[in-house]
């Protein structure tokens, strides 16, 4: 197990290194100049001032030199500094991390609840229509981008009905009720989007388990349909769905990015989007690397969990 863990950790580290190179190079291939964005496309900046700013930000150095400066800084716990505000990237991430984690957690809870309900419902209710509706839900949920759901929910609940605020963020520590009211629509939006693939996987798993011998036995004993599904089918279908849940958890942060922007939720999402528009390289690099690390770590955790749950999957030990 230790060897397996070490190998997986090494692979994860290599993946993150690759991601860091990719982000760094791609950003510098983008058209646009951070120094121009920094001073604004104003009509009265001396080009010499822009040149001085480029020098100050180290943008005149060759890309490998810039990369080394960044990556060696990370080794020292430094993610660099925003080209715009004088905040360190770690400070900016710190300002936005809690809202993102809150939204991600809420979105994930909504997604899991929706997934379980929508998967179990067609299995319990033996009718065509629930299955078809849930099928349509998964297609729409997977096909439509999150901002579409966000805008539709916003138009209905905020603009038309006026029952929920249209966006913004208040820290939980400042105003619990206000925070929760603001959280409802973004969490619902994120939850809908995340639930669609979960529903699809869980339904497939439920279908597989439904044909198993122990389920037929339970049914043969005369146990009610609902009880069979909840006690015998669902628990056994959860393990195959774990992979899907792992991917969902890993991707929840990136899903939150778009949702945050629509609802002006002060999280990492809006930080990334704004930074891309401004070509604030240091902030983009730091934030994307953090999201990539979260994705890799969650997937690693899921793999390890699999290893714990099913010894056959501990590839390294089997090979030895």
């Amino acid at each position, binding site marked *: 197990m230790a060897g397996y863990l070490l190998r997986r950790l090494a692979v994860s580290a290599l993946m993150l290194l690759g991601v860091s190179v990719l982000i760094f190079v791609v950003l510098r291939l*983008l*058209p*646009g*100049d951070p*120094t*121009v*964005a*920094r*001073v*604004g*496309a104003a*009509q*009265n*900046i*001396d*080009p*010499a*001032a*822009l040149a*001085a*700013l480029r020098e*100050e930000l180290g943008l005149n150095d060759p890309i490998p030199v810039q990369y080394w400066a960044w990556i060696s800084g990370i080794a020292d716990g430094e993610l660099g500094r*925003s080209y*715009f*505000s*004088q*905040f360190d990237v770690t400070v*900016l991430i710190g300002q*936005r991390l809690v809202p993102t984690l809150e939204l991600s957690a809420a979105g994930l809870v909504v997604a899991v609840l929706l997934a379980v309900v929508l998967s179990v419902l067609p299995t319990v209710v033996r009718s065509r229509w629930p299955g078809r509706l849930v099928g*349509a839900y998964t*297609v*729409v949920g997977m*096909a*439509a981008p999150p901002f*579409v*759901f966000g*805008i*539709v929910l*916003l*138009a*209905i609940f*905020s*603009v*038309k009905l006026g029952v929920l*605020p*249209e*966006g*913004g*963020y208040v820290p939980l520590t400042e105003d619990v009720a206000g925070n929760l009211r603001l959280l409802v629509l973004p969490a619902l939006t994120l939850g809908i989007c995340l639930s669609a693939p979960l529903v699809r996987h869980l339904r497939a798993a439920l279908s597989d388990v439904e044909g198993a011998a122990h389920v037929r036995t339970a049914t043969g004993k005369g146990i009610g349909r609902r009880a069979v599904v909840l006690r015998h089918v669902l628990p056994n279908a959860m393990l195959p769905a774990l992979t899907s849940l792992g991917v969902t958890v890993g991707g929840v942060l990136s899903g939150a990015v778009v949702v945050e*922007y*629509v*609802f*002006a939720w*002060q999280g990492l999402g*809006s*930080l990334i989007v*704004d930074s891309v*528009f*401004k*070509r604030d390289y240091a902030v983009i690099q730091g934030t994307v690397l953090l999201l990539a690390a979260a994705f890799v770590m969650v997937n690693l955790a899921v793999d390890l969990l699999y290893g714990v749950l099913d010894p056959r999957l501990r590839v390294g030990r089997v090979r030895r």
Partner: protein
Amino acid sequence: MGRAQNWGAAALALLLLTSACSNAGDNAPEQPRATADSGKGPIAPGGTLVYGQIAGVSQLDPNTIASGAQTQLQTLLWSGLTTWTPENTAKPDLAESWQSTPDHRTWTFKLRPGVKYHNGKTFTAAEAKKNFDRVLDPAVPAQVAAKIDMIDAVTAVDDTTLVITLETPNPELPVDVIDVRMTDVDDLANIDRSANGTGPYKLKSFVPDQTVELVRHDGYWGPRPNLDAIRIVRYADATAANAALRAGQVHVLWSVAPDSAAGLATEGRQLLTAAEPAGFVVWELDTSAAPFNNPKAREALSYAANRTEMMAAAYAGYGVPTPTNAPVNPKNRFYDPTLPSHGFDLDRAKRLFAEAGITEGSTLTFWAVAGNYQEWTTIGQILQQDLAKIGITLEIQTNEVSTWSAKFYPKGKSYPNLLAANYLSFTPPPDSYALAWFEGAKGTCECNWAAPAEYNDAIATIESAAEGPERDAAFKTAQRVLNRENPVIFIGSTAFLSVAQPELRGLWVQAEGTLHLEEAGFAA
């Protein structure tokens, strides 16, 4: 996939339906005005004003300000030696008085005693000097430097006396120094945490591009501000911002899209814009590269611009066409209405284009911004349709903002065949800046225009002569040259529109659309 598309269409239809319904029952729109004086009654002390905008505030250094989204903070957090009046003149701020020598080359400012920064440090003439020196440092990207580049030396004679000597005379120096804002230069490393100004409000918290929270500065040297606090909130898009205004969650919304302004300024809400708009919708051209290195090509383009239709369609009637093709608003007293009008004349444009080698089948590119400034694209579409009538293709390319600006900015870039849509804000004449922007040696116009000596001489006169016939004539000369040479195509004059709730009083709009909130408050 087909099913998904159906769902998408249904969602969009629902969205459009709800948007349409939300406008139903609105009353007649307000006419824009420059001052929020609903009821013209007294202002009650206290309250928190929520100020909404779609653009975020990225940083808090007042002298390297990067966007219009930050301008409302300029008078709230920081003070200058002088400050604006609604008539576009200077009035005392940190300087109680000033005087110049008869040749306008030496200016003495008497500063208020006992003023302190928000961090408690005393503001003195030496502090003012530090700020001027920083702004004038070529390595500091301070936009205001262009306005005061005639300064030779700044001297702190004593704590309350500041002497500024100039290389060339400048009778407008008190106006030109307005935007040099005083902050604790020795503590710049903390400016985004403390702001460190001497203004009526001080910083409570700042989340870049999201929120700026200000609270009343009880140690302010001037009249006690009316409000307890001001909260500046950035919204993701116009839909969210407009909804917040309608729901009463925002008291003032800045930079409202012209096509939605009338719909928002109902139910007593006040529509605000500058009395003399000094923002200009322009197409920047590279006059050093083909085809616009040929003056006839530029002139043709000016005649091909249906300014009246463009301003009506894109700015919903809240803009003024500028057919003399100069950065002077028709309401300004220096505007020269006797200049040849570049009225829409497609036949003339076609002839001039042909003389410049732009014949049928030629293609030009219109360079605009994606996501924002739909007005520019609307204008481009009108031009596209008109040029098509004379056989010229106009390709409209929209780009995200960094890509857009990198193409032609700063001065010196080559961008042949391109019309770069842009929006320029200037201080209205008698300030020289709008016209000096084109000046050959010092001007920073991205048009790369080699201004003729006649133009440069006129600017030198405007900048150095006191009010009088000589200066008036120079203003006319400069406008005449621009009218003839067309280094930039000016479509119209306008200013950012804002909407304020009925209970707001005491705020006013500066020439380019900046809202002044320093004396704002709620109706008593």
